[in-house]
């Protein structure tokens, strides 16, 4: 039997098909990324407690009114790029004088030592044992476990930081964004940008000093690394930076 030749498929229209697909993808997709500042909303509380008193020096209030004018700590100004300078000053003024009482208007720094951390962990562990034995409600025990996790985080951070003491900003130090109903979103976003910018700068400087890498590199490594032990390492570094420069942002609901 004679071999029959298989006719070749005409691929001339392949390009047309590919073009069609290409154009379809060009039309239905977009290049621009969705970028945003992620913030958490405080949980709704059922029981109203008296508000905790916060010292004035621990508050960095960034205000904007309905005319989009800005005010930080009583100083009125128009250039929004200045906000990050205020944030930097807020964090850095007393940082060198950790553990001392300084008479100025900026949050104090305290030092935590290895023995302090160990004492606290022991104390909380004892408390948990006692509570479990007494059959306390689960949420109270959970609260203690959270505290324990917090101290263990500090322990890890201090080990990474080196030395025997870790400078820590006053636990009440916070930045609050106080806007009005009619304040433009661009101003609100600008305030967020400036805070983010300042925190990034602080953490970046510390990362450069400690490990000679930038904060951005650390974050990228943490997100893209597959090796589990390495991820843990990077995570520990980021945790340390977060303890040194915590970003506590309060967004105050506008009343008028």
């Amino acid at each position, binding site marked *: 039997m004679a071999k029959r030749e298989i006719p070749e498929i005409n691929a001339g229209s392949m390009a047309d098909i590919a073009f069609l697909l*290409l154009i379809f993808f060009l039309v239905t*997709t977009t290049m621009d990324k*969705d*970028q945003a500042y992620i913030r958490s*909303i405080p949980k*709704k509380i059922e029981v109203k407690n008296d508000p905790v008193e916060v010292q004035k020096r621990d508050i960095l209030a960034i205000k904007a009114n309905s005319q989009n004018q800005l005010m930080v700590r009583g100083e009125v100004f128009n250039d929004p790029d200045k906000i990050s300078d205020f944030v930097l000053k807020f964090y850095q003024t007393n940082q060198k004088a950790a553990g001392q009482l300084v008479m100025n208007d900026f949050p104090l720094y305290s030092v935590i030592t290895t023995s302090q951390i160990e004492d606290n962990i022991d104390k909380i562990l004892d408390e948990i044992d006692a509570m479990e034995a007494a059959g306390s409600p689960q949420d109270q025990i959970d609260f203690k476990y959270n505290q324990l996790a917090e101290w263990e985080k500090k322990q890890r951070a201090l080990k990474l930081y080196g030395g025997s003491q870790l400078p820590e900003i006053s636990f009440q130090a916070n930045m609050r964004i106080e806007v009005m109903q009619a304040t433009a*979103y*661009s101003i609100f976003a600008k305030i967020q*940008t400036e805070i983010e910018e300042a925190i990034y700068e602080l953490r970046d400087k510390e990362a450069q000093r400690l490990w000679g890498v930038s904060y951005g590199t650390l974050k990228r490594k943490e997100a893209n690394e597959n090796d589990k032990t390495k991820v843990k390492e990077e995570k520990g570094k980021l945790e340390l930076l977060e303890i040194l420069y915590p970003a506590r942002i309060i*967004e105050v609901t506008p009343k008028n």
Partner: protein
Amino acid sequence: MSKFKKEGKKSTPGVNTSSLPDIVFMLLFFFMVATTSKENDPTVQVEQPTGTRAMDLTPFKQRSEVDFLYLGKPRNPARAEAFKMGYALSLDNVVQPTPDGLYNTNAVGQWKKDKFDQKPARMTSPIELVITCVKADKGAPTGLIFDIRKELQNINALTIAYAVRDNSNI
């Protein structure tokens, strides 16, 4: 007598197009990889403010862990007059009615709850961590954003994202 014989009219050979599909496919794959699918065009016009050091939401989007809210001026000029504030909220292309001429954000809670219920079962994040991204226009009043925030707080969806356009690292 010349050595080189002049021939008659020479016809130019056709360009070989057999590699054209390859080129086009290459382009196609580039665009498939480099872009993300478009959300449906919102019915409100949003011009985002610029910012830096913002977080890239693409990984969250790929895990469908983010819902988008649009806050801007209605595109349809006839409708724009109905909004006294000039701004409307667009949830999945439904522009929210504004009965008293003011904005109405009551629908946000229900919308977010529905969205969460529709999410695939493989997504294990609790509702607290599911991001709601607010894409607001430059001039949108911040009061509106706080209203949205309050609605989200009521249903315990506690992660919000304020969208900006980040031009620093493109």
